[in-house]
């Protein structure tokens, strides 16, 4: 097959874009295997000792644990609250609906440090200090728009006549919810939760303001580390991070793909 020059130019552009996106990650991951205590590229000799340090360093272990706790709480709360809001926004018309929509989506526009700073001031005014509750709240605010969007799209693909059919067959509203709505929304709910979890676990800017030494999440711990040391530990940690996130995203994508199949009820 003959390829036109334009075709080749397009392929080159795609390769360039992919390289641009992937190269930094590749460089960092390779740097994590460096034998020496400085961040250089390419490494002269390879070693796994920075991975060992990343996994055993106390601040990282605590940060990982804290991040996990915050992630689980924040994504679960965001899912519950977000699904309820998405349902209300999708199914009902009410006064100030657009205002509510804008407020719920506002954390997409407002910088995370503003949210963090605001919450820090609010929390100390109210005497909460920098507790886990405040960190979780901060993350809920930040991930909520993504959960709402994800559930809203699933709701749009959900034929309302299925609920009517179920009702006419004798199902009271809570049974319609349990046997029809939730199973059909499951892919959207799961992917929304996973997306929220990944965002929460990676969130840094907002967390920087609302965490303390006791509640700092992994990204904050990493930031504090890099201010003191410049060895390849962070590069090793980044590699671990990438693997975990990629795994979660693959799972999420699996459910999103599945969702498309489940939401299509026309076989022809």
């Amino acid at each position, binding site marked *: 097959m003959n390829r036109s020059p334009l075709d080749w130019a397009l392929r080159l552009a795609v390769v360039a874009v992919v390289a641009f996106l992937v190269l930094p990650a590749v460089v960092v991951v390779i740097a994590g295997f460096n034998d020496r205590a400085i961040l250089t590229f390419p490494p002269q000799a390879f070693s796994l000792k920075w991975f060992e340090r990343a996994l055993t360093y106390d601040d990282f272990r605590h940060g990982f644990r804290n991040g996990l706790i915050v992630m689980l709480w924040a994504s679960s709360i965001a899912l519950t609250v977000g699904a309820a809001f998405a349902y209300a926004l999708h199914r009902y018309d009410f006064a100030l609906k657009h205002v509510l929509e804008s407020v719920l989506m506002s954390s997409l526009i407002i910088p995370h440090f503003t949210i963090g700073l605001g919450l820090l001031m609010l929390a100390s005014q109210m005497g909460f200090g920098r507790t886990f509750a405040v960190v979780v709240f901060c993350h809920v605010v930040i991930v909520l728009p993504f959960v709402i969007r994800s559930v809203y799209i699933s709701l749009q693909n959900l034929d309302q006549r299925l609920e009517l059919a179920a009702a006419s*067959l004798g199902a009271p509203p809570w049974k319609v919810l349990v046997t029809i709505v939730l199973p059909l929304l499951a892919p959207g709910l799961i992917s929304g939760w996973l997306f929220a979890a990944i965002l929460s676990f990676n969130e840094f800017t907002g967390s920087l303001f609302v965490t303390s030494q006791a509640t700092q999440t992994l990204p904050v711990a990493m930031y504090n580390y890099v201010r003191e040391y410049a060895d390849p530990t962070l590069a090793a940690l980044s590699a671990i991070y990438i693997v975990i996130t990629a795994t979660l995203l693959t799972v999420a994508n699996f459910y999103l793909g599945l969702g498309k199949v*489940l939401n299509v009820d026309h*076989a022809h």
Partner: protein
Amino acid sequence: MSTMLTNTQHLAPAAQSSSRRNTPAVKIDGVSKAFGDTTALHEAWLTVEKGEFLTLLGPSGCGKTTILNLIAGFLESDRGEIFIDGVPITDEPAYRRDVGIVFQNYALFPHMTVAKNVGYGLKMRGVPKAEIAQRVREALELVKLPGYGDRKPRELSGGQQQRVALARALVIRPKVLLLDEPFSALDKNLRSAMQVELKQIQRRLGVSTVFVTHDQSEALSMSDRIAVMSAGMIRQIGSPTEIYRQPTDRFVASFVGDTNVFQAERRSPSTVSVGGVTVGVRSTDVYDPTAEPVADLFVRPEDLAVADAGTPGTLAGRVTAKVYQGGYTDLYMETPFAEGSVMARLNGQDAVARWPDGANVGLVLPASAGVAFSASRDAG
């Protein structure tokens, strides 16, 4: 045949054998519904007898689906009362109405197997598992899909999905079966086959049915009675023959079937004249004697005959087009006595050769086969 009967016994509506044999299956008493400023339904009065197949026919937005949704309990009426089996159900939620519904897109639960879909209503009623399995099997046999229980809806064709939807609605032995344009998603051949089959099943089970459609031929061929609707109002209720032959309303006369409209003058309560030719009209009750002397005479194409030009007692006309349909020929003509063109449906092979385009002809009005309405120009 005897096995067929035992098989369908379970599906026969329970109410049929009750003491309320003469109670209508559905009674709609002066029900109105508005959406904001738009009146969707204006004081509808309607009864569906036990075992009757009643069709709500009308163009989109006429209020027919609103009636269906009101019976099913998907909408609340603003005024009036609805009875199912003699019991007022206006305040009952949809899930306590014992109504079976088949939607245009079938609305099968995509995450459940065919058997689970069909058995859903029974499960909600707390029927024991063994009985559910038995009744689901019977229902699938009824719609000629035995052995399809383990499939998913998406593995089925459109026609098969519709059968499943029908089985799902019938298996709960509904007091009334509601059909919301169930054939419009099927291609033409499958549609006629399904129409015949649905009608057979409906007869065999004796289930009271309300069928919503905008397709007049579907309505004429399937119904015991038809309620023709437009603009939120029921215009006429009657048998298919009455609706077609004796429309009591301008809208009904022009919406159901093809028709020609002649400009006529009132002669007596039962006669009108067109261009000096006086003919009798069938529906005299619709004729308002206090109105202006002008009237519109509606004549079906098959009631119109064509003769040689100049024949006494005919109206002058000229052939503009012919459409050969095999069994009959549609002959289009223009005449000063009608608005727009006039069409005669002629049997026989010679019509094509006998009336060439442009030929002058004499239109023969039927002696008493037309219906007349006061000439109001706000028709429809």
